[in-house]
């Protein structure tokens, strides 16, 4: 299990290859990557991501631990960036490995749902006309109910 919180960019392809190469006996690897929306949708210049050092790592480790306790996972990976990100840059990724795809898919969705509403990150959109904190979506909070 690997949880990384970093300001440096990451290469999602390289990370996924390394993750997949390190899982023994798994028949399924599922990954999700979140990227900064922009360019086509407006005048977004950058996304600033603030976090709570210490609590962030604790919360992510807890969420990954919950996923491992619930599904039969060979491994799990969470990488989340903070700081100033450009449009189209990867923000975060999760990857799960399991013997069968059902566990890998379910655990990846669980990780994403909890990460969005329970890990202390806050996004701020920087545009030419000003800056605005991204509001939490009710859908994201409601998504937790299915688990």
């Amino acid at each position, binding site marked *: 299990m690997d949880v990384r919180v970093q300001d440096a960019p990451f290469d999602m392809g390289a990370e996924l290859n390394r993750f997949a190469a390190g899982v023994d006996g798994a028949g399924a690897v599922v990954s999700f990557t*979140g990227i900064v929306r922009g360019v086509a949708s407006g005048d977004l210049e950058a996304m600033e*991501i*603030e*976090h*709570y050092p*210490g*609590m962030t790592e*604790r*919360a992510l480790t807890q969420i990954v631990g919950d996923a491992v306790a619930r599904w039969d996972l060979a491994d799990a990976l969470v990488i*989340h960036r903070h700081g100033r990100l450009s449009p189209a840059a990867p*923000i*975060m990724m999760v990857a799960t490995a399991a013997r069968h795809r059902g566990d890998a898919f379910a655990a990846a969705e669980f990780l*994403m749902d909890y*990460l*969005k*509403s*329970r*890990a*202390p*990150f*806050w*996004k*701020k959109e920087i545009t030419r006309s000003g800056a605005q*904190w*991204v*509001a*939490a979506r009710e859908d994201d*909070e409601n998504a937790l109910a299915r688990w």
Partner: protein
Amino acid sequence: MDLRYFAWLRERIGTGHETIQTEAATVLDLIAELKTRSEAHAFAFSDLAAIRAAVDQELVDMDAPLRDAKEVAFFPPMTGG
């Protein structure tokens, strides 16, 4: 007690960190006390529905006891991912 503020709470209060002496028994009691510190604090804490709290880096409800808490953090609902 160390207080930490994040995102727009930090911006409204004007700092991300302050240290205070308090006898507040719960998170809600602490907020009531903080609102009297300055107009900026009162403004930042004016809508409790928009605020979440963590005690010693664990997310808690607003009526959570503080007991021997060393660090209390306030922030808006999280928007990671």
